[in-house]
């Protein structure tokens, strides 16, 4: 087999990049596989205010690029390839990884840090109008909607944060939420309610997103009264939770009812040499700093695993 890796990391978000720093710095041949874009969720986040060491906050993207540079400095390789299969070898022999484009690689230890993807609403018009007003990234697209009304869907931190951000451009921001209270942290809620451009529409869901070549309105339904109405807007930004990317782990490790992988405090799964870290694991705090901490923990344990089963680096 041509491509032999010591520690394969699947997913180049904060957990994967932190794992990459530790794995490569331990002098193990390290590859970080990314099926999409580097940085994971922080690539689409604006400023990060709660990562220790940055008292004034830090841009999410800049932080991701710095983590990448740090991992690469120690020799980790970023590979834009989609790993679709992980097969454990017999006891004491490496895992086999398969990629979407048909490659077969070997890895002595595997750390899955594939994170979570934003959910779709699943309503008519949504997929048809992606890029024409429907968006899952306000930091990317809000600037295209200057001085027009827009909708943000959701009630968690992401939705509230993006609603506040979007007021820089939009004339009016409607936060549409299916409950009558928000899940977002208090600090974010205070900013939201203090912003005169934002109107929260409670107990309401989107029924359809309307428009031919571009979004022109959304049909809203109040789930308490049953009343529906059309709200003219040019954009609908959707932040309704996430689903962990555990498809590569299905049948291999136990998952909780939400689809997160169950691990111990060393990020170990029942499969010897296979680790899962970051937002994809069960009972994670789902924060940038905890994801990075998970990645470091997994890489340290992976190094121990390889040392026990294969010996010291270079042996």
């Amino acid at each position: 087999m041509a491509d032999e890796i010591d520690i394969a990391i699947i997913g180049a978000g904060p957990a994967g990049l932190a794992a990459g720093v530790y794995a490569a710095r331990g002098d193990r041949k390290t590859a970080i596989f990314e099926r999409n874009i580097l940085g994971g969720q922080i690539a689409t986040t604006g400023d990060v205010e709660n990562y220790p060491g940055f008292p004034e906050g830090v841009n999410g993207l800049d932080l991701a690029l710095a983590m990448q540079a740090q991992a690469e400095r120690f020799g980790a390789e970023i590979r834009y390839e989609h790993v679709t299969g992980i097969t454990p070898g017999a006891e004491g022999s490496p895992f086999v990884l398969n990629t979407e484009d048909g490659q077969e690689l070997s890895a002595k230890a595997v750390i899955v840090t594939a994170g979570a993807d934003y959910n779709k609403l699943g309503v008519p018009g949504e997929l048809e109008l992606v890029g024409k007003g429907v968006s899952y990234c306000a930091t990317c697209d809000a600037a295209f909607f200057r001085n027009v009304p827009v909708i943000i869907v959701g009630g968690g931190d992401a939705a509230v944060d993006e609603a506040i951000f979007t007021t820089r451009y939009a004339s009016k921001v409607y936060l549409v939420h299916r409950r009558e209270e928000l899940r977002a942290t208090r600090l974010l809620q205070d900013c939201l309610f203090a912003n005169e451009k934002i109107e929260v529409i409670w107990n309401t869901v989107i029924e359809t997103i309307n428009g031919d070549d571009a979004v022109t309105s959304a049909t809203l339904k109040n789930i308490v009264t049953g009343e529906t109405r059309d709200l003219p807007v040019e954009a609908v930004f959707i932040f309704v939770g996430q689903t962990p990317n555990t498809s590569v782990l299905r049948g291999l490790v136990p998952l909780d009812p939400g689809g997160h992988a169950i691990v111990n405090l060393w990020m170990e799964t029942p499969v010897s040499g296979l680790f899962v870290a970051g937002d994809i694991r069960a009972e994670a705090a789902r924060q940038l700093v905890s994801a990075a901490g998970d990645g470091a923990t997994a890489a340290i344990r992976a190094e121990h695993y390889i040392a026990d089963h294969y010996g010291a680096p270079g042996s």
Partner: protein
Amino acid sequence: MAHPADTSDATFDADVIQNDTPVLVDFWAPWCGPCRMVAPIVEELSTEYDGRVKFVKLNTDENPGIASKYGIRSIPTLLVFKGGEVAGQIVGFRPKSDLQKRIEAVL
């Protein structure tokens, strides 16, 4: 590694529309995080398709004319032009394999 050249409102016609080979245009802006993250993938593709597909990028902040003409309301957006017409469109960040499929479909 090949580096996609910049195109603009002023040079778009010559760079893209009048070009004989297919052209992939990467619409981006400096403040768009995912756009910066897509750039290394586009660079890899530009090396892989060297000679068969031309790669250029267009800053939507500095070139609102072309961005508006093609109805760009989300970035990153990649448009593939063939014979001066849009032959393929990729909105948002997508896996490299998806981009390859779209390019192959046009070739």
